[in-house]
């Protein structure tokens, strides 16, 4: 492994590492525009020039992004030559840049703004009329192009070609007349369009969903996952006044690389900002407090012992699954603790898996049995169990449960407040969105990831976790398997991992061993 010195810091890197990546290892930031670790290297913005010092040789400037770190290299990012070269690049890039930061969505997280502040001169000498180009043109379903702000790094072109596998952008024209454009008469049609606004280092590509909605510094961000398929891309949820404004992927090599799909990115905006939703609990025909509903459910469960089935949902966190298992296992009939696997829609071959079942792997690894729709319908209608608890109203609809159950309980997030319980459930308890929860989920490649609460729970909604814990206690369920410093430590134990609390779950997740002990359903 080559060992080299960057700004006086010694770093050892794997062979074929470039100098930008080598710098990252010792917290030396090499400023970049065109370079992106997921894309081919063009080395054209010239921002990453660093000094290469060699004995008895003049100092040489090299583009860090396409220079391989070699044994014994002496690199300086802050010597006079590198400093001058960077300042010159910034003066060139700003020459025709509109400097409309006050009305630009990128302001506050713009590499051109930030690097100009760090390395620029503070004073421009370009006094000519600036170049004009296309402004805010919708080039796909989400992204608007502003050619005047563009610095021609071509990340977007390479992204569409190389990652999205949907070549739809090009560099049109030559020299100072070159611009980013779509092919004539065409627009971007891709599930990955939204990433363009993240990878654009300036404000040339913005999304119509976020445009003019908020200044970025007013957003509160929480790192969580996207639950719209079981890839569980690691994402940052950005919230203002309880409302989700923007979702961006976080680099996570073992889950989503650097990106996320549009179904998740824009889908979450609807998913997490549902507008009106059912926030009142019901027992029988009347709206009641949560505690009353839980008591009613507990009474019913004792009554219906062994006639019950419980249909868990992939929207539940591992902690909630564990609590549900503990509460319901003693009461359900044999094999009555189950879930309906997602309908396979077919993925896009990149990130989207086509399985809209966030924590399905968690259900499986925690020993919950998959059942088919028809199996479930058969169980419900052949006079078997006459009672069912559902955690997803769509599952209940799929199983046509209302028609065939004598008793139906539902704990879920349901679109709107009605005068009666959703699905006319005998007991209804409102649930929480994933973005209102702390906990963990497991993705399709068995990576245990952390959910963080990004939005406050609606008033009066206690959430699945406290409902299930309370229910278990009322039913005097055994506490052994949920004991520990926190519930996550119980989950990790149950998964055969070394015990870890929620706070100890690493940022990029934990690989769950495929041989996780499929747990015996506790019965009594």
């Amino acid at each position, binding site marked *: 492994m080559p060992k080299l010195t960057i700004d006086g810091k010694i770093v050892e890197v794997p062979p074929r590492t470039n100098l930008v990546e080598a710098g990252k290892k010792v917290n030396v930031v090499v400023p970049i*525009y065109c370079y992106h670790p997921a894309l081919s*290297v*063009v*080395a*054209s*913005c*010239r*921002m990453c*020039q660093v000094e290469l010092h060699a004995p008895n040789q003049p100092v040489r*400037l090299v*583009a860090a992004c*396409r220079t391989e770190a070699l044994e014994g290299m002496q690199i300086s990012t802050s010597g006079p030559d590198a400093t*001058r*070269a960077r*300042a*010159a*690049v910034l*003066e*060139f*890039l700003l*020459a*025709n840049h509109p400097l409309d930061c006050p009305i630009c969505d990128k302001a506050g997280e713009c590499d051109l703004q930030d690097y100009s502040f760090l390395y620029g001169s503070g004073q421009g*000498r*370009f006094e*000519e009329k600036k170049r004009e180009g296309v402004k805010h043109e919708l080039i796909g379903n989400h992204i608007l192009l502003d050619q005047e702000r563009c*610095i*021609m790094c*071509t990340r977007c072109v390479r992204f569409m070609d190389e990652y999205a596998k949907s070549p739809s952008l090009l*560099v049109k*024209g*030559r*020299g*100072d*007349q*070159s611009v980013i454009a779509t092919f004539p008469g065409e627009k971007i049609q891709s599930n990955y369009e939204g990433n363009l606004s993240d990878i654009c280092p300036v404000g040339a590509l913005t999304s119509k969903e976020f445009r003019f909605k908020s200044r970025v510094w007013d957003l509160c961000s929480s790192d969580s996952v996207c639950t719209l398929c079981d890839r569980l891309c690691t994402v940052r949820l950005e919230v203002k006044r309880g409302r989700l404004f923007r979702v961006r992927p976080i680099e996570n090599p073992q889950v989503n690389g650097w990106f996320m799909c549009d179904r998740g990115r824009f889908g979450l905006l609807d998913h997490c900002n549902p507008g009106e939703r059912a926030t009142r609990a019901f027992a029988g025909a009347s709206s009641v407090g949560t505690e009353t509903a839980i008591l009613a459910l507990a009474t019913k469960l004792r009554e219906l012992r062994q006639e019950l089935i419980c249909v868990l949902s992939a929207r539940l966190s591992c902690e909630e699954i564990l609590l549900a298992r503990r509460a319901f296992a003693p009461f359900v009939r044999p094999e009555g603790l189950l879930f309906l696997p997602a309908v396979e829609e077919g993925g896009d071959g990149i990130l989207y898996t086509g399985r809209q079942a966030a924590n399905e792997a968690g259900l499986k690894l925690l020993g919950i049995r998959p059942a088919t729709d028809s199996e479930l319908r058969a169980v419900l209608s052949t006079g078997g169990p006459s009672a069912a608890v559902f955690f997803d109203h769509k599952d209940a609809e799929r199983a046509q449960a209302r028609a065939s159950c004598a008793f139906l309980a539902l704990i879920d997030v349901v679109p709107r407040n009605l005068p009666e319980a959703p699905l006319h459930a005998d007991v209804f308890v409102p649930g929480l969105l994933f973005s209102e929860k702390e906990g963990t989920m497991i993705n399709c490649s068995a990576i245990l990831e952390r959910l963080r609460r990004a939005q406050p729970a609606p008033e009066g909604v206690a959430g699945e976790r406290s409902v299930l814990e309370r229910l278990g206690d009322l039913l005097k369920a055994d506490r052994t398997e949920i004991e520990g410093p926190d519930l996550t430590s119980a989950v990790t134990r149950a998964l055969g991992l070394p015990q870890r609390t929620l706070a100890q779950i690493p940022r990029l997740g934990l690989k769950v061993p495929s041989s996780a002990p499929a747990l015996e359903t506790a019965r009594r």
Partner: protein
Amino acid sequence: MPTYLSTHLQRRSALPLEDALSEGRYRTAERVLAEKTPDQVIEEVKSAGLRGRGGAWFPAGTKWSFMPKELKGPSYLVVNADEGEPGTFKDRQIMEKDPHLLLEGILISAYAVRAETTFVYIRGEYLDSYRAMVRALEEARARGLFGRNVFGTGRNIDVVVHRGAGAYICGEETALLNSLEGRRGEPRPKPPFPASHGAFGRPTTVNNVETIANVPVILEKGTAWYRTMGTTQAPGNVLFGVSGPVNRPGLYELPVGTTAREILEKHAGGMKDNRKLKAFIPGGASTGFLPASMLDVPMDPESLKAKGTMMGTGGLIAIPEGVSIVEAARVFSRFFRHETCGQCSPCREGSAWSDRIIGNFTRGQGRRSDLKVLQDIADGSVRKTICVFPEAYAGPMLSAIKHFRAEFEALAKE
């Protein structure tokens, strides 16, 4: 003084194959392919000291020796006929008047670099050159001079004639390769160099037309004979192209190291209408302006480098008294602004910005402080980009300021 490049350049049309053969064309190639190994050819070209005539004057034999000796898969020779440097018009004459000189050079060179296929990349505007080359190639193929089993040696050597689409930057060898492959004509970062990753990712040698046209005579008459012409470091003759208001503009085949004065005054017949020479450009637009007082400089790479310029392509432009150097600089700045590929930010923005500043001077709107800006634009871009294009636009701009600063200052408004 022996000449070997310009023998037929006075013709109106291409020398037909029959005439070329009767003069002995292709005999050297036949003998070389039969008697010498590729490495022996490379050694001879090396010891002859042949240097690239495309402007950079890189030793051709050395370039060839970078090509891999053991091959798995194809390698290529690419002839750079994208002659676009303003003031340069030598390669087209070779292709249009004496295409078999180039083709014989290709046979020998392709053999030396172990290339079965040669691409001749011809500037898009050079339709006549393209037609002449296609016709000559057909003639030669019909005679079995190209194709399979050339001269019965068992070797396959063939040529693809390819037209560019009219971009100066495609004369840069890696931009040429991108263009040849159907990509945007943008220079590639180096390394890797074409000798390892060239056309279509294969080992490739790129040589200028005139360079290849020098090869047959070296193999025919030998290294010692070749070295009787030119300088020790740059032997041989060059096709000097003279343009501007001189009495006999045109191409002159003269040894490397002939002084600019001899070329202009003796061969090109001096200035027209007794006009006085004010400045000259030694080797194409990018080499910049030299004042008339430097006319005694020998036109060879080393002497011109010592004067702060370059030998370039040998395209010598005479500029008479009465012509504004600022205006002349503007002609070039506009050209280079138009021709930069634009991928590297310093070059894209720098070429355009400097053009606008020089434009301001031509309208009397310049400022003295702008001269510093122009210098900074050059400093911020030269040797800081993927290719040497900034050197090209900085050449005329900086030399104009260096030698004719007063003209800029006279046009400054403050």
